[in-house]
């Protein structure tokens, strides 16, 4: 399958920054997942994909093997988490996340044993499985989109559709400067990727498959073409022009098929589905080899002596891989992701997660601090550069003035935060920061509003119920009084005292009950151990105390939000 | 007594019909090309406002709520007709210059606004004072505007004074060779000058507010050690 003759489409905007990709592609992918290289402690965050936070299913002190599931997906929009190597769970606690906030989230801390012992892996026969079984399997394998968005893959591999989809697109464009993890992956493991692609095609029933690669990666293109030729399936490698952000899923779909998927719509609605090359590999490993997602390729680049790609276990502290590349002394920031969309890390102890495609070291020399911000002169450069065809300058005015309604009207949420507008702005305005601010502010307000609405509804329902109960009660009393009156009329001789002080006696009774309960509670606290535990064996007691401990821990986790670590 | 003081202050400065409320701009902008015209129209407006407030305040308990506006307009129109006829009789030259703007006092929203907002709800003395003070607030602004526009526009003061006092003459302030800044006399000039006057007032007010806040803060920091009630009251 050679480069197709079919014409490509174009997307508006985009920029052509310096790519700096050569440096990190000189060496082959380094392996940091070998048993000897495994760090003594891995910190595996439970929340590593879009959607719900997985529930921990291991206990502190428990032995786990490599690939053992340690977190169960919470609902359908979530993805499982696995132990990256064998060892002992030393803690389940809040640890700092690779997130710009520097806040913590629940992590499983693994003390590795250096044996790197796999669980029993068994390939999955997707041909015999129902679509639902495939989805559940991939969810439990923790396969998520590895391009950076970490959207659970099982939600996109929707095999329910009758007759399959039209086009399956495999994204090997990798448009951000410095990042080369997909490039290296395609060069070195093209065959496995293609196997994954074939699996995906079979599941989706795609009529055609296009593997889009930017034309600045000739080695990757060549390797993929060889692999495609070997596999015997009619896949096509499509060479797309190099322009940032051609690797954005929507931009790549546009370039290859001409279809524009609007904000709020899924590409499946247009009969297209797009996956990253690394995701294809993960699918192959999950289905073909029965291995869950426990490692990924990470580029280390920027202010280092020896930029290189590594195969890294999820949960490895990033300082571990940085050290392998000898960082330069003037390094002053760590960025996860590329220079256009990456986020700054709060420190070098944070772990590699499924979203970590690149660790970029920055210095004032390679990423000079921006010149002072000047006022917007409405030059329109940003509008020309915007790949989403927005008017960034208008969004900037509205976000800056906090006129959020207007910002939404001007399609703020179509912004993909690619950074092209900030890149070209002659006034050095941090435009994307304004959009991020406006977006998170709008989300927070919407959430607050929905909570307030819910509280209002619940309050109003409660009031309604109180009134209804009152009415029912008075109706009941009236009925009883009527019955009593009737009885009185019948039994004229013996007068029965009808309790007309029902309410007050009721209250008194209640007070007495409460007093008794308090007394009981005090008693219980004094006699520390419950009665039924006296005749138990030592093992049983140990078990009970372990359960108590776990319970306490879960309670600790269930507490709404813990104060951030000092 | 304090209430009257407030009426005076409101009319001339705080609630000034032009600088604070931006009411009645049409005659203000059209007639303020020179000082004499400006003051003449301003005084005519004062007379109407004073009498209108007086009349409406006196009649207020007899006017049904629904038809109050037509009644107000009727009263104001009668008063304006009187003023119009007097101008025609005694200051005919000026009458010709001011032209339509004297009859148009009827529609000046300051007059109707004060009648509706104040005279219809307050006693005779307060209403009369309010009418006079609001009028004076209008007069001094239009006079200053006329003064500035005449000075910048043609370098004279009191031109046209002979229409009122035949023996008096305009004063040439700037040298005869001054080319004149035509735009000051044209309608845009009126907007510019008025804009600067409003800006000036806002600036003064902002400064006064700032000073007040400063004082409050000062008192509060002092009051912390003393009694809290005093600082709360302040």
């Amino acid at each position, binding site marked *: 399958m050679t480069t197709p003759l079919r014409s490509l489409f174009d997307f508006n905007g985009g920029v052509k920054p310096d790519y700096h990709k050569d440096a990190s592609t000189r060496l082959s992918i380094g392996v940091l997942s070998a048993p000897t290289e495994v760090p003594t402690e891995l910190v595996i965050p439970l929340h590593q994909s879009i959607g719900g936070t997985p529930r921990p299913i291991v206990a502190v002190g428990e032995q786990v093997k490599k690939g053992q599931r340690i977190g169960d997906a919470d609902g359908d929009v979530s993805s499982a988490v696995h132990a990256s190597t064998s060892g002992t769970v030393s803690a389940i606690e809040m640890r700092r996340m690779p997130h710009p*906030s520097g806040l913590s989230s629940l992590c499983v801390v693994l003390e590795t044993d250096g044996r790197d012992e796999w669980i029993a892996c068994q390939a999955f026969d997707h041909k015999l499985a129902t679509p639902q079984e495939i989805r559940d399997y991939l969810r439990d394998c923790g396969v998520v989109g590895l391009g950076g968005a970490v959207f659970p893959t099982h939600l996109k591999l929707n095999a329910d559709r009758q007759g399959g989809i039209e086009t399956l697109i495999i994204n090997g464009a990798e448009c951000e400067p410095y990042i080369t993890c997909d490039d290296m992956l395609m060069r070195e493991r093209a065959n496995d990727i293609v196997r994954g692609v074939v699996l995906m095609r079979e599941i989706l029933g795609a009529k055609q498959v296009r593997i889009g690669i930017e034309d600045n990666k000739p080695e990757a293109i060549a390797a993929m073409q060889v692999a495609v030729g070997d596999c015997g399936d009619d896949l096509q490698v499509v060479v797309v022009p190099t322009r940032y952000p051609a690797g954005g899923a929507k931009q790549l779909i546009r370039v290859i098929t001409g279809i524009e998927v609007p904000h709020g719509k899924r590409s499946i609605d247009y009969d297209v589905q797009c996956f990253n090359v690394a995701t294809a590999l993960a699918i192959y490993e999950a289905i073909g080899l029965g291995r869950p997602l426990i490692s990924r390729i990470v580029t280390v680049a920027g202010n280092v002596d020896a930029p290189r790609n590594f195969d890294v276990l999820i949960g490895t502290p990033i300082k571990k891989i940085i050290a392998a590349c000898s960082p330069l002394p003037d390094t002053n920031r760590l960025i996860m992701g590329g220079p256009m969309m990456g986020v700054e890390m709060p420190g070098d102890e944070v772990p590699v997660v499924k979203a970590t495609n690149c660790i970029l070291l920055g210095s004032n020399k390679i990423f000079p601090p921006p010149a002072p911000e000047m006022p917007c002169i409405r030059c329109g450069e940003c509008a020309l550069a915007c790949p989403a065809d927005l008017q960034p300058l208008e969004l900037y005015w509205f976000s800056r003035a906090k006129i959020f309604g207007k910002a939404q009207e001007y399609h703020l949420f179509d912004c993909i935060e690619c950074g092209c507008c900030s890149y070209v702005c002659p006034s050095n305005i941090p435009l994307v920061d304004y959009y991020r601010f406006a977006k998170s502010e709008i989300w927070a307000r919407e959430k607050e509003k929905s909570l307030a609405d819910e509280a209002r509804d619940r309050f109003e329902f409660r009031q309604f119920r109180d009134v209804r109960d009152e009415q029912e009660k008075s109706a009941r009393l009236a009925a009883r009084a009527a019955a009593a009156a009737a009885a009185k009329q019948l039994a004229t001789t013996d007068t029965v005292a009808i309790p007309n002080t029902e309410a007050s006696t009721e209250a008194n009774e209640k007070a007495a009950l409460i007093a008794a309960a*308090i007394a009981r*509670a005090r008693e219980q606290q004094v006699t520390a151990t419950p009665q039924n535990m006296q005749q138990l064996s030592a093992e049983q007691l140990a078990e009970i105390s372990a359960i108590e401990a776990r319970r306490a821990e879960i309670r600790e986790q269930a507490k709404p939000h813990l104060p951030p670590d000092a | 007594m304090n209430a009257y003081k407030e009426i005076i202050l409101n009319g001339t400065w705080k609630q000034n019909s032009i600088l604070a409320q931006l009411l009645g701009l049409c005659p203000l902008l059209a007639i303020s090309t020179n000082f004499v015209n400006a003051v003449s129209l301003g005084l005519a407006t004062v007379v109407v406002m004073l009498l209108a407030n007086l009349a409406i305040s006196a009649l207020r308990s007899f006017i049904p709520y629904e038809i109050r506006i037509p009644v107000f307009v009727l009263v104001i129109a009668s008063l304006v007709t009187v003023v119009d006829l007097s101008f025609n009789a005694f200051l005919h030259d000026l009458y010709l210059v001011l032209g339509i703007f004297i009859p148009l006092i009827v529609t000046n929203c300051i007059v109707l606004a004060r009648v509706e907002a104040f005279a219809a709800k307050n006693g005779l003395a307060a209403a009369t004072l309010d009418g006079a003070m609001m009028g004076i607030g209008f007069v001094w602004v239009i006079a200053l505007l006329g003064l500035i526009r005449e000075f910048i526009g043609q370098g004279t003061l009191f031109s046209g004074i002979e229409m009122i006092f035949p023996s008096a003459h305009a004063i040439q302030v700037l040298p005869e060779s001054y080319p004149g800044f035509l735009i000051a006399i044209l309608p845009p000039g009126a907007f510019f000058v008025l804009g600067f006057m409003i800006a000036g007032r806002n600036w003064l007010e902002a400064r006064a507010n700032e000073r007040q806040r400063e004082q409050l803060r000062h008192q509060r920091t002092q009051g912390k050690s003393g009694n809290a009630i005093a600082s709360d009251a302040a």
Partner: protein
Amino acid sequence: MFEAILVMSVGAIVLGAALGYAAVKFRVEGDPLVEKIDAILPQTQCGQCSFPGCKPYAQAIARGEAEINQCPPGGEDGIRKLADLLGREFKPLSAEHGIEKPKAVAVIDEQTCIGCTLCIQACPVDAIVGAAKQMHTIIAEQCTGCELCLPPCPVDCITMETLHETVETWKWKYPVVTLHPAANLQ
């Protein structure tokens, strides 16, 4: 003279009649203002404003019977929004109604709870589940942090826990241009 008076009178009568008719015919019914005020109030239903809930307070404001600065959970922001909506002057939060606190939720210490159901009755939004003599618990997502359950508890087993920022609730800050700080990595 007579003619003039006649013309004016007829004009006055006709116009007066038209206005009188309009006043009856086009009277504005209902009060959408209450809804707008209620939308600004935080719906904690805490009663700190001295009204039994947010809606009654909104109605009181609309009638002009309550000040706009009586809602501590709404805070300064809320007062500002109300001031904007109603065209009233901004006032600092009135101290007698409480102080603005960070958002918190109630948590029941389940070891101490005796299952008296008093808190369940006090909760304005039904966010506490439990039955008589059974342990109670609070549905954290639905708790408005109104603190109304604290006083009735006979064993003081309910505490308020301040909500801290998490990775999910974290917000990007308003961009401010500052000089880049010195390197803070080793």
